Each structure stands twice: as C-alpha cells, then as structure tokens.
C-alpha cells in the first residue's frame, strides 16, 4: 500500500504545528493580545502534564497496569 500526501486543511495538528511560531514573525509586541494568554495556558498544561508524559513513556513499553489503578492526581 502506498502513502499519499494529504492536504487535509482541517488537520488541526498539522496546521497548528506550522502557524504558531513559523512563517514571517515580526515580533511579539505586534501579535494579537489574547494569543499570548492562550499560549501560556497551553504551556501550563504541558508543565502539568510532565508526570503524565513519563507514564505515557512507561505505557510505550507496555506498562498498562496503571490504567486499571487510578494514581493520585497531581495539581
């Protein structure tokens, strides 16, 4: 089976992966105000997700036991 290029413009992951910090960037000051806040929120989520990320890596080697035993919520 062959792999063909998709140009599915509704692929949010592909679009976001390009438009946020790539392309012609003037400087932060000119950028719309709420974008910054929104991005900060995303970054915060990433930090909070740090431990979750490691658990994902553990899952990558097939450690799925955690799914059956809810772990403490880290805030």
């Amino acid at each position: 089976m062959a792999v063909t290029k998709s140009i599915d413009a509704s692929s949010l992951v592909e679009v976001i992966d390009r438009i946020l910090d790539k392309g012609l960037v003037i400087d932060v000051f000119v950028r719309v105000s709420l974008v910054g806040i929104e991005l900060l929120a995303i970054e915060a989520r990433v930090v909070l997700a740090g431990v979750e990320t490691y658990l994902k890596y553990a899952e990558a080697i097939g450690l799925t036991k955690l799914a059956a035993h809810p772990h403490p919520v880290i805030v």
Partner: protein
Amino acid sequence: MMKSKKYYYAYGVIETEEPKTCLSGLQENMSVIPYRDLALVFSEVANHSLQLTKENALAHHQIIAQIMKRQTIIPFSFGTLFNKKSEMTGLLTAAYGEIKKTLEQLYGKLELGLKVIWKKEALAIKLERDYEDLKRFKEEILSLPPDSVYGPAILLGQRVEAVMKEIQSECQEQIYSPLQAIALDARLNKLLNERMVLNAAFLVSRDQETRFDAMVNELYEQYQEQLNFMYSGPWPPYNFINLKLDRHVIGRG
C-alpha cells in the same frame, strides 16, 4: 459617534503587478497594501483579541493556502496584527530587498511535511527486545502491589524517554537523511508525542516532487510494519521563512 479603532490582520506577502486583481476568488473582506511590485494581504478586524481556536487557526491557514495555489507567498505567523496601514507599507518599504530575496528563493518550491510515529504494539516489542533491562524493570513493576506502582512507573517512563532518543536518531538516519538528500532544505521540528520519532519539513523543488513522493513511498514500504507515516503538503513555506523582522525596522510610518 466615536469611530472605533481598527486593526489589520496580516496573512502574507506576495509579488504582484496587479494588486487589485490578485485577490479575486478570496473572501470580500480581504484587502491588499501594495508597494512597488509587492503586496501585503490583510483583513480589517475590529479588535485585537483573537483566541487560538480551531476556527481561527484554520481560517488563517486556509486563506494563505488559497493564495498559495496561484502564487508564491511569504506566510505570516498566526496572530500578526498591525495598528495602522502605514505600518504595513513601512514593513514592505524597509524590508523590500529581503522580501524579494526570500520570494525568489521560494519560487517554484514546495514545503512538504513528514511525521513518523511508531505503532503502539511494534514499539513495545522493540523496546522489550532491544532493551532487556527495561523489560526486567517493567516486569518487576508488574509484580508490585497496585498502590506502590506509581513512583517506579515514572522512573521507568524516564528511562524509556531516554532510549527513545536513540530510536529517534536511528530514524533520522534511515528516513530523514535520504529525504534530505533530495530536498533543497530541511527542518527537524519538535516531536509531538512519545511515539513520534520524526517531525520534519522539506523544501522541495516542484520538478522533484514526484521523485520525493517516490522516496517517501519506498521508505514507507520498508518500515510500514512498524511505523506510521503522516505525509502532507504542499504547504505554504512556513518552515522556510528565515526573515526575522523587528518592529523598529518597520518604523512609525
């Protein structure tokens, strides 16, 4: 009545001798600021608050993608806003030479994207096979009582993350390098999840597109048992805009 302030949302810069007709087919609210043989495509917006929603992100991209079908465009990053029309002219004036050079470098070229992601089962098998200490550690954890699993699982995750780096460089050698050899330019971007081992963008000459497709397919055939390929494009050349402009360059207009 007080006249409300307007802002100008920028999409991209194109080369055109006919700024009036270069927008045909696009939404009515789109306009251009011409300067010599360049034009900056923008739309007026009522306020400077814009959320990064799915709709806004896609709208930004779709307008640029539409223009790209007809001509080379330097796409602006999401959320670029000007206070005054004169600032847009100021940008085109101050950076005219650099913009022309960038457009020239992009002419007749395409951006293509490739993300490579390990299949879940295949990755677990590879990790257990190639890294026996990790396999043993995992089995130890599985024999622990459920309430003492959490800490060791994080530790295991950290070790898996470290070996994923090795797997990523393997993938770079086997998949990225042969493609990079055909491309005119290439970028490695941040990996978006734990099973992703390649997130690359390539700048490819239009007449090499078929050859590039064929090479992607050849690699896919070779690795499809283990890896998923997300091959996409042509994209506006978001990854290959090396212009960094300071607001001071634009001037007050």
